[in-house]
């Protein structure tokens, strides 16, 4: 779909704590490491509401606090099964005359929020909206997902282009099918997945299909973009899917984050977009494709305009350099993995 939406502000938040995958492997596998070096973990007093607040505060500050009329939060780790995170957040941020909705689609719930609000502002039904993707991803102890399941939140303030926007969202497509690669039933604490099945029929098929749809609808090709951002469930997949579609290392590398923070699920591609927007220049084109198990992919064409940094603005990559490592016992205690 053609869109006439603009990113007016963005924010990315990753908790300060990391656990090395060597530490997880030491406890469960007698040594070794996961596909990534570390993953970010939320502290005992953090959840998707607090992390959403952090990322939204950054995005709203960059956008100069416009009158938000929709708050959409994508997540699979909501504090309540019934009671919207969007409404709690609206109160804390001080916007009550707003739609407050929670979305779920495994790792692509955040880009769904982005796509829905882009559609609303393009259609003129609202002037400004806040799209958030946030997760404290759950990995069953000793499961291979435990190496990568991380925590983080990304937020984007959207409106219509006004000449002072950070970037324009020009086009978006989605592709979804019923694919049983990964799921969680209502009362289960941890998700189930079909191991190797998560690669070809799920991640690669849906991502390549949505990106090819995007190319076909817009007439664009990989060389038209300065940056390409793909969902990062591990360090390898985004590079491999990018290469298959014809993107180069130079286009793919700036967005990569999985090695340092793991897979932040619904926050994954929004955080990567924040990292890329921090370094992008006026006129740069960005291709972004998310992936969510179950399964589907949303793809976007984004054109960078400019950004007036506050004096105090610290780029996301710089903030990531400040972290503290914790051991498995601390992680298990904080993330509720110890029975009391």
């Amino acid at each position, binding site marked *: 779909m053609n869109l006439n939406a603009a990113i007016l502000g963005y924010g990315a938040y990753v908790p300060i704590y990391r656990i090395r995958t060597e530490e997880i492997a030491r406890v469960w596998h007698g040594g070794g490491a996961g596909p990534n070096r570390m993953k970010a973990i939320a*502290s*005992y007093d*953090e*959840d998707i*509401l*607090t992390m959403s*607040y952090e990322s939204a505060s950054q995005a709203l500050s960059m956008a100069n606090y416009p009158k938000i009329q929709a708050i959409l939060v994508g997540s699979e780790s909501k504090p309540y099964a019934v009671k919207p995170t969007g409404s709690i957040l609206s109160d*804390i941020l001080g916007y009550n005359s707003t739609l407050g909705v929670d979305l779920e689609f495994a790792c692509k719930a955040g880009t769904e929020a982005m796509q829905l609000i882009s559609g609303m502002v393009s259609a003129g039904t609202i002037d400004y909206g806040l799209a958030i993707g946030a997760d404290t991803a759950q990995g069953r102890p000793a499961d291979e997902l435990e190496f990568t399941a991380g925590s983080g939140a990304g937020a984007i303030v959207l409106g219509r282009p006004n000449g002072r926007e950070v970037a324009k969202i020009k086009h978006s497509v989605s592709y979804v099918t019923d694919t049983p690669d990964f799921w969680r039933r209502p009362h289960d604490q941890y998700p189930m997945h079909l191991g190797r099945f998560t690669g070809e029929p799920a991640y690669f098929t849906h991502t390549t299909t949505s990106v090819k749809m995007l190319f076909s609808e817009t007439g664009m090709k990989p060389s038209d973009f300065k940056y390409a951002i793909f969902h990062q469930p591990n360090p390898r997949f985004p590079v491999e899917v990018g290469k298959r579609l014809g993107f180069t290392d130079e286009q793919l590398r700036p967005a990569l984050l999985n090695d340092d923070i793991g897979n932040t699920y619904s926050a994954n591609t929004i955080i990567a977009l924040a990292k890329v927007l921090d370094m992008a220049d006026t006129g740069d084109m960005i291709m972004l494709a998310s992936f969510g198990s179950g399964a589907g992919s949303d793809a976007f064409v984004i054109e960078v305009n400019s950004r007036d940094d506050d004096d105090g603005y610290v780029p996301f990559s710089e903030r990531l350099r400040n972290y503290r490592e914790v051991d498995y016992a601390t992680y298990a205690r904080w993330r509720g993995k110890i029975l*009391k």
Partner: protein
Amino acid sequence: MNVIPIAYWRNRKVYTRMIGTKCKDCGAEFFPPVRVCKKCGSRNLEEKEMPKNGSLLAYTKLSEPAQEFKEYAPIYLGLIRLDNGVNVISMIADADEEKLKAGARVQATVRKWTEDGKGGLVYYGYKFRVLQ
């Protein structure tokens, strides 16, 4: 669990957004909010959101905190002077004793205070963290 959901709900703007009061007669600001100005005795007060930045004056470490915080021990409590001069006592988020020095710049965020078991409400509120 000692938190009463309705009392928390009534005060949620105080706990999450740090809404205090400002005296319309003498300009004094208060947090938590007051009904009567402690400086000039006026009842002519308005709501005022407190600044989220300040400096740490002192802190203490609680190894045996109250029941609803027990599983989070140790808890660090800071005495903070906000940039408008108002003093606040707050839990410190992501506390690192090496960085908890008098004069350290701190900023408010929202964190989970406690939760009422697995099925009850989650209570959120301000905590301050040391700026890097």
